[in-house]
């Protein structure tokens, strides 16, 4: 019966449900964008530069891919709380804090995967770009551009991770009804309250959204590879 109730909520365009979906998308897409803007150039730079401690940096970057969301939530909570180093704007328990937490969670994933991708591509391009006397900054730009189709997949990996996590947004968002409640935190809460219809409905929407985003990205990649090589 809960399943029927869930479908009913979705099909009737339940306002609460769709407000939660909208906020979830806003938070996770923003976080993915932010993490990509920081993580991709960072990963490419690590791939292309040699510096003391580089091996340790790579191991750390790879290790950070497995950061537990609750720990990220806790760290961002401490940083953003009133007495914390970034407490003055008072953004704790707002969607902005959730965006930051998810971005911190997935930036290492995006950076580490980009580092590996760009390093492999560099092995292929090194002689050609060196012979063309392409400068260090232009190399980063060129390799990121030529890896763009694979970077979409990396972005999706980050998006998937952010969309699925619950611990970080729960801690820094506070799961405030109508303000910072997203799909995953609502599912956790409503399940514990026994309101399974809303939980199942959101679960279905969450899975569908992730599938849809992946399908769109796949289509874009297919199209682009045909048209851009």
């Amino acid at each position, binding site marked *: 019966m809960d399943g029927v109730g869930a479908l009913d909520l979705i099909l009737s365009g339940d306002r609460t449900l769709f407000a939660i979906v909208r906020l979830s998308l806003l938070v996770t897409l923003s976080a993915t964008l932010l993490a990509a803007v920081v993580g991709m150039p960072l990963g490419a730079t690590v791939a292309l530069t040699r510096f003391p401690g580089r091996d340790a940096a790579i191991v750390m970057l790879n290790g950070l891919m497995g950061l537990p969301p609750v720990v990220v939530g806790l760290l961002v909570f401490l940083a953003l709380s009133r007495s914390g180093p970034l407490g003055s704007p008072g953004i704790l328990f707002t969607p902005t804090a959730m965006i930051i937490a998810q971005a911190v969670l997935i930036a290492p994933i995006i950076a580490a995967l980009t580092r590996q991708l760009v390093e492999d591509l560099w092995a292929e391009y090194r002689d050609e770009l060196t*012979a063309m006397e392409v400068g260090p900054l*232009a190399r980063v730009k060129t390799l990121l551009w030529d890896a763009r189709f694979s970077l979409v997949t990396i972005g999706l990996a980050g998006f998937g991770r952010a969309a699925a996590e619950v611990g970080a947004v729960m801690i820094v968002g506070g799961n405030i009804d109508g303000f910072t409640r997203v799909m995953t935190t609502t599912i956790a809460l409503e399940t514990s309250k026994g309101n399974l219809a809303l939980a199942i409905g959101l679960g279905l929407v969450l899975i569908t959204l992730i599938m849809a985003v992946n399908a769109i990205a796949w289509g874009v990649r297919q199209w682009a590879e045909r048209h*851009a*090589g």
Partner: protein
Amino acid sequence: MPDSAVIADGLHARAAASTGSLPIRFEGIDFAVGATHILSGVELELHAGGPTVLMGPNGSGKTTLLKLAMGLLTPTAGSITFDGASHAPARARAIMFQKPVMLRRSVAANIAFALEAAGRPSSTSDIRRLLDLAHIAPLAERPARRLSGGEQQRLALARALAREPQVLFLDEPTASLDPSSTKLVEEIISQVSASGVKIVMSTHDLGQARRLAHEIVFMAGGRVVEHEPAASFFNQPATEEARRFLAGELVV
């Protein structure tokens, strides 16, 4: 068919006006990777003039020598000088690899990239001139990675020429091409050479060497065994190794 004299003009102007990269002098060049010696005691001087063709069996060090001359590798010992200087003038050299890497963008954008990397504005007329020179103008908007092997090789040649080099290194430029593509690439090479650009190329194709070479550098086992005008190399090889190579017998 574009007018080759007009196309070669830009290259010729630069080649004629330029000084400073020739002769290229290799003195006591050793190159080793770990314990493996790839080049040993190479002494060689390359002067302005017709194409210099590097010949020799696989593993004789031809590609390594080209990469050293291009500055992509650093010799383990010895020195390479360009008209007496330890560095070649900026953008004086260009190279085309045996398997060139096509950037993931259109043919025209590949050329524009090479022009910009060479510090030159990628004007439509420059792109057009290079497309014509390489006989790939109709493919301008195609993704470069979708081209055939021969077309990719010609695009790589156009990219190298975008640098308006004084010296152009070609590493087995037609190794995997069919006869008609090979012919086309050879025509472009001859045209570029005629415009005053020094060509230094490696090849396994004896016929190609006979058609293009002004002089031959014959290598075996990481050493320069012979350096002769093409006619005398083919008619009267001075060494037993070269004679056996020309006879199709393996030299190790």
